[in-house]
C-alpha cells in the first residue's frame, strides 16, 4: 500500500466533520498563497547546524561529506 493510501485510510477513520476539513483546506490555501514553496529541484540546500535528540550538534555539510542525505521537515509529534 502506498503512503498516500495509508494516509487516506487514516484520514477516513478520523471522520472529521466537513466544517473542520474546510477550515484546514482554507488554511492550506493561505499557506500556499504566502509563497512558502520550499526549495526547487537543482537548487543547493542551505547548510545548517541543529541539535539532535541527544543534544549533539548535527551539521548538514558534515553529513554530506559522507554521503547523500534525506531531509524530512515535519510539523511535530502531536
Amino acid at each position, binding site marked *: 500500500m*502506498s*503512503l*498516500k493510501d495509508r*494516509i*487516506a485510510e487514516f*484520514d477516513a477513520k478520523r471522520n472529521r466533520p466537513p466544517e*473542520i476539513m474546510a*477550515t*484546514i483546506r*482554507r*488554511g*492550506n*490555501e*493561505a*499557506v*500556499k498563497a*504566502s*509563497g*512558502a*514553496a*520550499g*526549495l*526547487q*529541484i*537543482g*537548487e*543547493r*540546500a*542551505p*547548510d*545548517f547546524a*541543529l*541539535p*539532535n*535528540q*541527544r*543534544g549533539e550538534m*548535527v551539521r*548538514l*555539510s558534515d*553529513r*554530506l*561529506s*559522507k*554521503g*547523500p*542525505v*534525506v*531531509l*524530512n*521537515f*515535519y*510539523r*511535530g*509529534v*502531536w
Partner: protein
Amino acid sequence: MIRSLGADLMAISPELPDNTLTMAEKHAIPIDILSDATSEAIKKYRLWFAVPAEVKALYLEKFGLNLEKYNGAGRWELPVPATYVLDTSGIVRAGQADPDYTVRMEPPEVVAALREIVGG
C-alpha cells in the same frame, strides 16, 4: 533501504528538544531528530509559515492542541511538510513540499532518487 544506499536520514521540526524520552530511548532512535527551535533552517528552506488565525482557533478549541507547549512561547509557526533528497554536493535531486500534510513524497521515490545519486 535508505541506509543501505549510504544515505543519512534527518527529521527536522520546530519543536523544542524532547524531554519525554529517556537517554536510552534517544540512543535507540536510528535517525537524527533535529530541533529547529528558532525556525532558522525552516526559514532558510522557505518552508516557514505562521499558523493562520482560523487554524489556530481550530487547534486550540477543537483539537485541544496548543503548539506553544511543543514549540515554545509565542511560536504558532510551522514548516510546510517537505522531503528533500540531497546529493553529496548538497544539490536537491528530488523533493516535495506541500502544506497539505496528507500529500507526501512516496518512500519508493526517495529510494529511486538515492539510487540515481549513488548509481546503484
